[in-house]
């Protein structure tokens, strides 16, 4: 067998092995796409359903001004937070960034909601507001609101459209969860999970 023969066959064998490796990698990428499902905001069972009117139309902000949910001019992202919730704090800059982007396509106001109306609690809220540079006219302390939306865990968000209809809601822990609310609204589904199941 000549040297040319040997080199010819060895080279082809290497090419075949490399092709196997490339194919295996491509399959693996496909498998990863299957497994790494985008996580949506976690829907909770209780409270008003997506598609229903918001249970409260008017809420009073920290500075005693009035906030209308579904006032016909802008959508509202209602985010339930607490000064003692660490995840809520990490979410605040993300909320602003997402809201800035979403506001380009449609008017959107962010309302942060919390509870605890004692003097001590109000002091905590005040510290929270100044530490994170929040707007007092967009910060609500209302136990009633939390009960109306049956908020069991924080941070919890609800997207309410111009007409006061709840378009998406769920527990949000990350930017991806938060964006999934807008995405679910855009796609006309109650949640990302519903969209993926329908796929």
């Amino acid at each position, binding site marked *: 067998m000549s040297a040319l023969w040997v080199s010819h066959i060895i080279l082809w064998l290497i090419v075949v092995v490399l*092709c196997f490796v490339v194919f295996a990698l491509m399959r693996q990428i496909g498998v990863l*796409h299957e497994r790494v499902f985008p996580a949506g905001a976690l829907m909770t069972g209780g409270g008003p359903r997506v598609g229903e009117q918001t249970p409260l139309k008017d809420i009073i902000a920290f500075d005693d001004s009035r906030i209308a949910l579904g006032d016909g001019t802008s959508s509202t992202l209602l985010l339930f937070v607490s000064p003692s919730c660490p995840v809520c704090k990490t979410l605040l800059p993300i909320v602003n960034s997402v809201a800035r*982007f979403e506001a380009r396509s449609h008017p959107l106001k962010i309302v942060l909601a919390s509870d605890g109306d004692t003097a001590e609690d109000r002091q905590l809220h005040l510290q929270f507001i100044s530490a994170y540079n929040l707007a007092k006219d967009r910060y609500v302390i209302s136990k009633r609101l939390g009960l109306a939306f049956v908020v069991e865990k924080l941070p919890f968000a609800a997207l309410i459209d111009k007409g006061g209809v709840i378009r998406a809601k769920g527990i949000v822990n990350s930017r991806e969860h938060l964006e999934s609310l807008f995405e679910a609204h855009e796609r006309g589904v109650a949640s990302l999970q519903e*969209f993926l199941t329908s796929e």
Partner: protein
Amino acid sequence: MDITVSYILRILLAFVFSRGVLHKLCNFSQFNATLRSYRLLPEPLLPLISCFLILIEGFLAFGVLVKDWLYPSFIAAAIFTLYAWAMSINLIQGRDDLDCGCSGPSEFGQRVSWALVIRNGVLTLFALATAFPMTSGTLSVLEITTVFLASIAVILIYASIEQGIANQNRQTRYFALKTKDRRSAAE
């Protein structure tokens, strides 16, 4: 055309058709539904046309390997062009959510796309290339070895490209990517 190249192309085409036939036979009802979703054929004729396509692909899976037989090469080119045309029509109409039904990696659900139209265009060229007369009549041992190993390599490359297209489809369908795009647009 060089006999080695011609045989490598023929084996690739035989692989494409035999896999297509297997896929269509194993998922016959699904194939019918796919044909229906293309909205190009009259409803009563669908089962008949499905059977005809499976038969013709089965014939081509063996026919393209027969040396100096031109009909399979031209029929294969016509079939690929037909599929590309059907996909193009639907894509132009904006119906890109159809299953392509072209025996891609079924568990990954391959949807019609322009990439698949281009793939069919390339396969049409390959099929036409096999119609050219071969340079020599017989294969030497060295050529047989080359044909064997190169065919495996070409089939794997083809399968990898197809897998890549399927991955791309899946990726674009997930709006996780869309949200990522929105994020990068925002920043």
